[in-house]
């Protein structure tokens, strides 16, 4: 069986600046795969290209065996690939519930959406308690929960999270990361982009290290965690 997501020789450029240079990686069904790298390495660019918000200059993206690198973004969501963008990008003036419903925009089964709304509230009870509140009044951690809940509303097979721990307290970060494991146990495949290598690799089945647009290392989460180079560059150890 082929991988759920496969990226082959992907190259993405902003005008003359090539941000992602011929990278290849894959995500197997049921796995949590981490993509780590320093600022400007090209992580966000990679995710945006996979979800159809950017077009690659060359290379291929295959989702469930089909090429999606020229497919429209809304079609990609409908096929079961959700993207929780960097910086959360919740709709601040809309209520929690409206935000969640927008996550389900691509779906056409209102009854199923209703049930998933309840599952989102089960996953993050605070969202249920404040369903009427405008999302902009939420704290950073709460907004991150909303962003994840919203992405899950499309009932994705593969969920891509772009730096979910950004700006969160250690406790909140733990909460988010344990939710990642919970979602995995419920059968969602996850591609996790993080700068926090420790947290991301601990839970990852497999990991890739991106540096200035190139994949320089890969291995199981545990292998990378004990890798000297990774320890030096990302965990601040020497």
């Amino acid at each position, binding site marked *: 069986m082929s991988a759920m997501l496969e990226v082959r020789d992907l190259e993405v450029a902003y005008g003359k600046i090539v941000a992602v240079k011929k990278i290849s990686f894959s995500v197997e069904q049921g796995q949590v795969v981490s993509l780590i790298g320093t600022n400007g390495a090209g992580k966000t660019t990679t995710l945006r290209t996979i*979800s159809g*918000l950017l077009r690659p200059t060359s290379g291929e993206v295959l989702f469930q065996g089909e090429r999606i690198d020229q497919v*429209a*973004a*809304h079609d*990609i*969501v*409908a096929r079961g690939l959700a*993207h929780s*963008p960097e910086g959360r*990008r*919740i*709709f*601040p*003036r*809309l*209520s929690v*519930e*409206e935000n969640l*419903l*927008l*996550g389900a*925009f*691509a779906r056409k089964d209102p009854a199923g959406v209703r049930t998933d709304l309840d599952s989102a509230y089960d996953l993050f009870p605070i969202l249920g308690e404040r*369903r*009427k*509140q*405008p999302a*902009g*009044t939420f704290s950073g951690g709460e907004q991150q929960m909303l962003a994840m809940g*919203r992405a899950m509303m*499309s009932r994705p097979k593969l969920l891509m999270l772009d730096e979910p721990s950004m700006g969160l307290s250690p406790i909140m970060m733990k909460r988010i990361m344990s939710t990642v494991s919970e979602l995995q146990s419920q059968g969602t495949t996850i591609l996790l982009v993080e700068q926090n290598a420790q947290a991301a690799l601990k839970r990852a089945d497999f990991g890739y290290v991106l540096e200035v647009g190139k994949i320089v290392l890969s291995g199981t989460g545990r292998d990378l965690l004990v890798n000297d180079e990774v320890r030096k560059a990302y965990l601040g150890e020497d």
Partner: protein
Amino acid sequence: MTDVKTPPAEPETAAEPQGKPLAWPLGLAGVVLVIAGSFLSWSYDGQILGDLSINFYPGGLQILAIILALIALVLLLAEKGPLTKLGAWLDVTAGLRALGLTLTLYMLLVLVAISADSDGLINVNPGGYISFAGAALILVSAWLLPLRQLRDMSEARLPAWFEILSIAVLMAAVLFVAAYALGLEDAWSFILCLVFIAAVAAVLFRTGALSWVGHVAQRNRKVLTLSAFLVAFLFPFTQGGSDANMSIATQVLVFAATAMGLNIVVGLAGLLDLGYIAFLGSGAYVAATMSTSAFATIGWKPPFLVVMLIGAGVAATLGLIIGTPTLRVSGDYLAIVTLGFGEIFRFSMFNLDGNNGPNLTNGPNGVPGIPDLEIGGFNFGDVHTVAGIELGRFSNYYFLLLILTAFVILVFSRLNNSRIGRGWVAIREDEKAAEAMGVSTFGLKLLAFAVGAFLAGLAGTIKAHQDGAVSPDQYIFLESAFLLAAIVLGGMGTIAGVLLGATILKLLPEKLRFFSEYRLLLFGLLLVLMMRFRPEGLVASRRRQLEFHEEDEALAVEVEEERLAVEEAK
């Protein structure tokens, strides 16, 4: 929000501040003076302002003053006296202050009008001064009375029959006042009538009664919509066979229907279209060139319903042609391209005269002599008598346009309350995030653009027959600007607001022709004032209000509660 779920039946009057002891009797005296003065002669000259010169026989403007005084009386009695129960809910003092101010302004304008229309203040009779003094007394009294703490209006519950009755009374009042105001011949009377309307509106707004009306409207949506259409439908029957006001009314309807269409583009999808009038124009030109006018250039004469569809289809196609390349780029480009498109349309109509290319439009002369519509043997040019009342040519078009307006409103609200509507909200809020959520932003924007164009095209086909002629100079940029102004003034994304805005912008210039030189100046001033004091428009959709008052959390929760209520009703 208060934490009290069901307010106690009796208000706690004990803790209320009492204000100056003199204030209340002073107000009462003011009311008496205004009414007494209104029964006396205001003006020596009986020829002006619909005759205010006869003692004990109040003219129209005097009756308006009496009505305002009676409202002041109700407010005073709610302050202290038999109606205090009302006072627990309404901000009576604030209402009285607004009323005192507007009534004084009203009386002042009466004095100015009398001296302007005849020769100076010498023509003012004592009654006028007495009423003016009374108005001033009410104003002073209102400022001496204390402001009070209020209950939350959204908790006010009255029997359903009463709410529906209130809607009926309100609608009847609207119909009556509209008919009365349109019937006024001279500009001063019309202005005074506007001040009267403003006074009543100010009282309703300041006391908080308007927010109650809003809640009632929310609860009885269907009743309100139906009665509004009933009132609009009955309007021609109040005109006693005269077609003069109906001519204005039809223009208002064309304008309102077109503005509602643009409201989908601007208010819902958030796209700035500066050339929208061209879509109205393309519909009109299709209808004109396919009509049986001697100047029509197309030989094929299908029935009008087919022409309507062709006109709307042509407009929608033009919309798609303009939209496809431009909607992919950012909003600023769209504004520029649509502005250009509006001009290109006009120049094309100007130049397709046979000298430069095919003769389609007769160039600057346009297509005159377009005959009246005839649908199924019903000729729109004939006078028909219904229930003993003559309905002239414009009344016929009025009814047709009313159906069109209803259709446009239906399309608007259907779209707004659908999944598509939610997608538009997301696009307005954060287009990039919306895209990541799977909202097909381009598709939805194009849809808004095409639907808007389609509806304008539809209106255009009727307009051509109603005007009897089309020419390029009817479709200038200024018209697009006015449509936008109607939306901004009334309240973007709302139905009631845009209808109100369109009515105001079309009606005022018709009735105040002597102002026509300053028309643009006045509208500019009006818009500036609106932007300063009420940027969300006269009737604000709750969500828009939130966009301008983000810090207001209670409002935000209210918005959501209302949305949920609407959803449950579905």
